[in-house]
Every structure is written in structure tokens, then in C-alpha cells.
């Protein structure tokens, strides 16, 4: 393998993000607390440049370092989504960290490091790079989850995340090692070629597939590998939770699809069954358990578990449909679902972060009581996000569900679409509970006396972006649909 300088150009966005991360870490000690916002601006500037670079790479697929990194339209799609979400995270953190009295400049460094890990994940074509990307992302997130050092809850979340994350990485790595033994390579195209049409003749291959499915199951937070999610989402600082719930899930799906579609496409008959079971139990458990939550971050955690279930419908549909356009539609459905899910989930967490004010935690559903009178605009935005999460038109959530259900019906999985829609109707109950509390109850004593909610300019931008995405893509989804269909992977 020869090292070509041109390869560095291919991974220029990654290099830029890592450089910026190091710069932020280095500048942090010499920056006075009052000027920490400058680090956020540095991060945002980097993201803007990367966005331009990645957009220009979209039409010209390239690979580097002997094919362990691929920058194709698929990778660029996820990267653009990740930049966008990271940008929102940085903006959200600007005001949230002050409210929490967390003056860590390193915070932005960790955000950028996690982002670089995610970028590696989605453009990796080798299990080694995927593993490294996953770990880079996870290690940064473990630390970010525990940033509220003074608060045992945050540390506990961090510890739980770490233990289960490391555990799942171990399982993933073991699966990778078995796959390497069975196929003789860690390169995805080589693995696909080795598997070819031979199917599951090798027990190693069977174990490898199962272990990889379990390992990714943890990262995607699908039932029964979801148990870390509610604790971590609840305990972590809200800005970090939003970042995890959206960006880490998107990147994990990106890598997951790449491995199972491009690497293990030959075994689709086998993994489809696994994911069908996971999808059904995820839909059922995620939605049912969300019904009884009293903490909104916990409820959103279960909601995000359920949404992973909806996205898996697209994966299952792709597997069942096989090599036809049906498979493309299924995968495009997953990509679209996660992209649209990003807007509404991030928006919902931003409102939760906004409610963190003075003595009010803003994390119990009760804290939303009478929000419509205290801050009508925030209540309206939360209403839009909840409606979208419930998948009711004309919002982005409906479009996302529509496309995965289309793929499911096209693949002949009509019963799965019916089941998922029934649970979507059930999910409306817990989303509407928030609406009910906001609009149909008068503020209680605690919430009535709490300080006035005034969103900072940065937070306003975040909310505006999120709500614009939810509403505009709900009304006119064409651009993002075309982008997803253009960037989709081909399942052979």
C-alpha cells in the first residue's frame, strides 16, 4: 500500500475537525472564562468550512489509503447531517453550559473529537476504521456525559455509559475478529466477495453476524440492548443528551448500514430475520415503556429507542426486498428517517435545555405545566416537535414514517407497517401528554414563580433551525428526499 499525498485531501474534513479539536483543547487553558464563547465560534467556523468541503465531495466519490476510507455520496449525506447537528449542539451548549455553570472549554474539543469519530465511522470501508471511529466517538461521549462533575447523577450516567459502551465494543470487536477469520479480511468489499453466494456455511460467520448485530444493537439502542439509554440520557447534561440522541445514533446507523449492506449483503436473508425480531420488540417495548415515564429526558430516551425501531423497519424492508429498487427505497427510508428525526429530537431537547433556569430543573414532565401561559412560543415549538415525533402530518415526522412504511409495504411487510402504525398511535398518547400539560393545565406554584424564560440568541437560532426543518420538510420534503435517494447504498 503506497501512501499518496492526495489521500490527505480526501480526508481533509476529518483532519480539519481534529485540528480544530486540538486547537480548542490547547487554547482553552489560556482563554479567560468570559471569552470561552470564542472557542464555540472557532468550532462553528470549522464546521462551516467542512460543510462546504463535504458538499463539494458529494458528486465525486473518492477512496483513500488503499480503500479503507471511502468518501461517497452516502458518507457525505451523513457527514452533512452530522455537521448540522454538531453545529446546533455547539450553539445549544453556549447558553446551556452557562446555566449549568460548566465553564469547560474542553467541552467543544470533545464535541469535535466525537464528531471526527462519527465522520470516520460513516466513511469507513474497513472494519478497523469503523472500530476506531466508534471508539473515538464513544470515548468522547463517555467524558461528555460526566461533565457535570459536581452532580453524582451525571457521573453515574457516565459510568453506566462507559461500562455498557465498553462491553458492547468488546462484543463488536470479537465479532469483527471472527469475521476476519471467516473471510480473511477486514475490508468490506473483500468480505462481501469472500461471502459471495456461499451463505452461512461457516459457523464462524454465523457467530460473527450475531455478535456484530449485538454490538451495533447497543450503539443503536435497540431493545434488548437499550438499557443504558434512559439512564444516560437522563443523567447527562441536556446538550450532551441531544448530541448523543441525534448525532451518535445517526453515525451508528451510518456505519451499521455500511457494514451490513456492503459487507454482509450476502447474508441478508439471515440478518433480516434478526433485525425483524429486534425491530418488533423495539417498537413494542420502546413505546409501551415511554407511556409511564415522568421525566421528560427519560421519556425522550424511550421515544428515541422506539424511533430506532421505526428506522429498522427500513433496514428489514431492504433486506427482504433484496437487490431490487425496493432495497434502495428501504435504505433511503432509513437515511431520511434519521435525518428528519434529528430535527425534531434536537428541538425537543433544546426546549428541555431552555427550561433549565434558576432553581427549576425543567426535566420533569410536571415542570412543563402551564408553559403555554409562561412562554407561549416555547410551548408552541414543543407542540410542533411532539406532533412531529408522533408522526402526524404536516410535519417531518410524518414524512419519515411515510417513507419507511412505503418501503415495508413494497417489500410485502404490510403487517409490520400496520403494527408500527398502531404503536405510532399509542406513542401519540405520551407525546400529547406533554402538550396536555403545557396547554391544558395552569402553572403550579413552583413553575409560576420560576424566573422568566428568555432564550439566548444562540438558543433561538437552534430552535429556529429545528422548527424550520420540521415544518419545511414536513410541507415540502422534496429536497431531502432527493438527497437521500441520491446518496443511498446499493444492496447486492
Amino acid at each position, binding site marked *: 500500500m503506497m501512501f499518496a499525498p492526495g489521500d490527505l485531501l480526501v480526508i481533509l474534513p476529518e483532519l480539519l475537525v481534529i485540528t480544530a479539536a486540538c486547537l480548542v483543547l490547547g487554547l482553552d487553558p489560556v482563554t479567560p472564562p468570559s471569552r470561552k464563547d470564542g472557542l464555540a465560534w472557532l468550532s462553528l467556523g470549522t464546521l462551516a468550512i467542512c460543510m462546504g468541503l463535504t458538499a463539494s465531495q458529494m458528486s465525486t466519490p473518492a477512496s483513500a489509503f488503499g480503500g479503507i476510507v471511502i468518501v461517497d455520496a452516502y458518507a457525505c449525506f451523513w457527514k452533512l447531517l452530522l455537521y448540522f447537528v454538531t453545529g446546533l449542539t455547539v450553539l445549544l451548549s453556549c447558553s446551556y453550559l452557562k446555566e449549568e455553570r460548566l465553564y469547560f472549554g474542553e467541552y467543544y474539543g470533545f464535541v469535535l473529537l466525537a464528531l471526527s469519530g462519527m465522520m470516520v465511522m460513516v466513511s469507513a470501508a474497513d472494519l478497523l476504521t469503523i472500530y476506531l471511529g466508534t471508539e473515538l466517538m464513544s470515548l468522547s461521549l463517555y467524558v461528555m456525559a460526566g461533565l457535570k462533575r459536581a452532580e453524582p447523577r451525571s457521573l453515574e450516567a457516565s459510568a453506566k455509559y462507559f461500562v455498557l459502551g465498553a462491553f458492547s465494543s468488546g462484543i463488536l470487536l470479537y465479532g469483527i475478529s471472527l469475521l476476519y477469520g471467516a473471510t480473511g479480511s477486514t475490508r468490506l468489499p473483500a468480505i462481501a466477495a469472500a461471502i459471495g453466494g456461499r451463505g452461512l456455511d461457516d459457523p464462524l460467520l454465523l457467530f460473527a453476524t450475531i455478535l456484530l448485530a449485538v454490538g451495533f444493537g447497543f450503539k443503536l439502542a435497540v431493545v434488548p440492548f437499550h438499557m443504558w439509554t434512559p439512564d444516560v440520557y437522563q443523567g447527562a447534561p441536556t446538550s450532551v443528551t441531544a448530541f448523543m440522541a441525534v448525532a451518535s445514533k445517526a453515525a451508528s446507523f451510518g456505519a451499521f448500514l455500511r457494514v451490513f449492506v456492503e459487507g454482509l449483503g450476502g447474508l441478508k436473508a439471515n440478518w433480516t430475520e434478526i433485525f425483524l425480531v429486534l425491530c418488533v420488540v423495539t417498537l413494542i417495548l420502546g413505546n409501551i415503556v415511554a407511556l409511564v415515564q415522568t421525566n421528560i429526558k427519560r421519556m425522550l430516551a424511550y421515544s428515541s429507542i422506539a424511533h430506532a425501531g421505526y428506522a429498522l423497519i427500513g433496514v428489514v424492508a431492504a433486506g427482504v426486498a433484496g437487490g431490487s429498487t425496493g432495497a434502495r427505497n428501504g435504505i433511503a427510508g432509513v437515511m431520511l428517517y434519521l435525518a428528519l428525526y434529528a430535527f425534531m429530537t434536537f428541538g425537543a431537547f433544546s426546549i428541555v435545555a431552555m427550561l433549565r433556569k434558576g432553581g427549576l430543573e425543567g426535566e420533569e414532565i410536571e415542570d412543563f405545566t402551564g408553559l403555554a401561559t409562561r412562554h407561549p412560543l416555547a410551548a408552541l415549538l414543543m407542540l410542533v416537535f411532539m406532533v412531529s415525533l408522533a408522526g*402526524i402530518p404536516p410535519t417531518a415526522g410524518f414524512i419519515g414514517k411515510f417513507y419507511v412504511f412505503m418501503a415495508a409495504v413494497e417489500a410485502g411487510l*404490510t403487517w409490520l*407497517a400496520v403494527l408500527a402504525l398502531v404503536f405510532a398511535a399509542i406513542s401519540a398518547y405520551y407525546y400529547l401528554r406533554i402538550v396536555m400539560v403545557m*396547554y391544558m393545565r395552569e402553572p403550579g406554584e413552583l413553575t409560576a414563580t420560576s424566573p422568566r424564560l428568555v432564550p439566548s440568541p444562540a438558543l433561538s437560532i437552534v430552535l429556529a433551525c429545528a422548527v424550520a426543518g420540521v415544518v419545511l420538510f414536513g410541507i415540502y420534503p422534496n429536497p431531502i428526499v432527493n438527497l437521500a435517494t441520491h446518496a443511498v447504498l446499493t444492496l447486492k
Partner: protein
Amino acid sequence: MTHALPWLTLLIVIPLAGTLAVFLAKETQARLIALAATIVNLLVSLPLWWLFDASSTGMQFVEQAVWVSAPPIRYHLGLDGISLPLVLMTTALLPLCVLISWKAITTRVRSFMAMLLIMESAMIGVFAALDFVLFYVFWEAMLIPMYLLIGVWGGPNRLYAAIKFFLYTLAGSVLLLVAIIVLYFQGGHTFDILELSRGTYSHSLQMWLFLAFFAAFAVKVPMFPFHTWLPDAHVEAPTAGSVILASVLLKMGGYGFVRLSLPMLPDASKTFTPLMVALSIVAIIYGAYMALAQADLKKLIAYSSVSHMGFVTLGLFMFNQQGIEGAVMQMVNHGITTGALFLCVGAIYERTHSRMIADNVGLTKPMPRYATLLVIFALSSLGLPGTNSFVGEFLVLAGTFLWSKLATAAASLGVILAAAYILWMVQRVAFGVPSPQHLPKLKDLDQREMATLVPLVVLIFWIGLFPNPLLSRMHASVTTVIARVTPASTTVSATMSAQPHPVPASADPASLAPAGEPSQP
């Protein structure tokens, strides 16, 4: 035919613009802006009545644009003789809803008016949509505003009623979405309602799809076993909410049956006719019977709605000119009459703060104008000849008579029961002896309230005495629907000839020819 103006888009956009204006304006101006928006919308919709070409069987005022390129979802709007009256009814009722809420709504007026306006757009969208996904989007978009209307501005038990309404209708419509997607793949990869209506589907598929459609539409109508959300929602909703619910929302169920179920699934519709007729007759009698037992005015009207909507579904599944025209008439009439009755209840509730019949007796003396109007609306509701409801119910019963005499007799029982509960209610509310403690509160209707109610009186007598302008406009469209349903059962092979318009459409209804002018009361 093409029209220069995008009429239907205007009708959908004006209320949305009004919503925006309401949000930007001050709280005190919200009422005026909402009233202006609804009246402008009414004025824009009125020319459609005259521009409409009654002889054409196709869609008119058609607008098309690509909405989503893959899969092909289009922004496709159009009206025919079935949807035109419903759209006009909607635009006519909304200003009245704003007027009746003028004083009744005191909290969060802006949001209330915004919700009314969003509802108006969505309702017009449902009636005008010719793309199935577009239809579904408008259909579902109504849920949240209605949920808020009931839940925020409703009565004491509003939370329960709101969530019950929401979950019932949402649960009903999720299956509709799957059915739409299945139809897309079975019907030639299109969401166009007109194209889907021309396709032929296997009988077993039709049965499943019919059940899925049924789940959505029967909950909305509401048909007999699915009606339990209606009394709760009506009782708790604010007056304007009740009016919208009874007058327009319920019609969407009937409209769904006639626009979608009958033309797309003719064989299944035939198969399910006995069940549908049975459920309709049960609804007619059960609704009327329950209405007899109510002490709450709103509940009484709610159950009478169940009964009246039973006539709609009964007429629709007769598959003859009288039945379907009668059903569409009945939809419009029920919208006007029941809307008027709810407005009356709202007016009296503002005074006595009670909807109980026992608290509102003997209003003739203190409120003569009110009592007069109430009696007119009540008589219209029981279907007195000369009023609008008579035309619709008579046509439905005439259509039923062609199908089964027994069913006609059973349905007629509902008319008799209606006379009983309506007259019993009128007797007490209008002619009893008022309780002294309520007397000082009983001021007669002011000008605003008269302006709300009198237009409906005009409509009641106009349709009751001259139904022909309305009937003639829906005639061609109804013929198209029947042509779609009838040949499919008599000659299955006719569908194999793959003609978009089966020949029997013009030849077959010779026996129905007298239906052209069926009713001159």
C-alpha cells in the same frame, strides 16, 4: 376546463394567512382578523357556486403541481358536485363560528382563532384534495387543532374528552395510511384518487382495503359501535368546536365513503352493503333512542347527530341516485341544522351557564327571538317538509325503498323517534315555566347572535323549498359514482374491457331517469 384563478388554493391559503395575521396581531384584534379572514374566504368561495358547470362529470377548478417527485405525490385539487356543497357549507359556517365565540372565548383568544382558521384550511383541503396522500395530510392535520380546541377551551371534563377524540380518530386513520400505500403498489404506482378510482382490484384485496377505509371513516362519521367519542367531545367542546365537529368533521367520514370507498372498492362495497345498512339503521334508531333519554342539550344533539348520520351512510350504500344524492343532501343539511342547534345551545349557555334542559325552560317569554329560531331549527332537525332536512331524509328513504322495504320501515322509525325527542325538547325549552333565578339573566339575542343564526334560517328554507339548484349540481357526479359501483357487480367482464368509462354508465341508469327531479315537496 381551466380557470384563471387558483380558487381552491386561495380557499386554503386565506385562512392560513389569517392565522399568521392573528399571531402577529394584538389579542384584542384577533377576533376581527379571524372574522375578516373567514368572511373573505366565504366571499371567495361563493363564485364557485355559479362558475360550477353542473353538466360536467369531471373535476372542476382543477389545480395540479408536483409536490414530491418520488414517489409521485401531487398537489392536486378539484371539486365536483359532491364536494362543492361541502366546501361551501364549510366556508359559510366558519364566520358563524367566529361570531359565536366573540364573547364566549375570553382566554387565549389569538390561539383560539388561529385554531379555527387552521381547521378551516384543513377541512377545505380534505374536500378538495384529489391526491390520496394530500388527502391524508389534510385529514390528519385537523387532529391537533381540534384536540386543542376541545382540550384548552372545553368544559370541565375536557382533558378526557380531548384525548378520547384524538386517540379514536388517530387509531382509525392509521389503517387508512397503510391502505393508501397498499393501493399505491396495487393500483399502478399512483396516489391520484381519480386514477385509483379507475383501477380494478381483486376482491380479497378490496375487502381488506374496505375494512381499513371503514376504520377511518366509520370513526369520523361516527357509525354505531364507534360513536362513543362523539357525545364526550361535543359536550366538552366550546360551541364553535361543537359546530365544526358536528357540521364539518363528521361529514368527512361520509365524504370519504362516497369519494374513496365506493369508487375504488365497488365490489367490497357491494359485499359489505348488508352490514353497512344494518349499522346505519342501528345508528338511526339507537341514536334517536339515546337522544330521548338525555337531560343535557348538547348530548341530545350529539346523539341526534349519530341518528342523522345514520341516514347518510344508509343512503350512500344504496348505490342509486336517490340514495346517494339524498346522503350528500343530508350531509349538507345536517351541517346547517345541527350547527344551528349547537349555536343555539352556545347562546343559552352564555346566559345560564348550564346546558341542562331543566335549567333552560320556558324561554319564549323572556327570549322570544331565541325561542322562534330554536323552534325553526328543531323542526328542521326532525325533518319537517319545507325545511332542508326533509329533502335529504326523504331522498334517502326513497332510495332505500328501492332496495328493501323492511329497511325503509326501520329507518322511518328513526324519523318518528326524532319527532319525539325534538318536540319533547322544544316543548320544555320553549314553552315551560322559567325558573325565577334564571329569569334576570335571560336577555334576548343581540345583533351579533342574530347575525349568526339568521343566515342559517335562510339556508334551511332555501334548501327546503328549492333543493333543485343543489341537486342538479351533484347529479352528474353522483351518476359517475353509481356507474362505477353498479356495472362492477352486474357484469364483471365489463371491467375487463379496460375502458376508463364503462359504457353502461349512460345506458344503464335508464331505470333511474326519473331521479332527475325527485323531490318537489
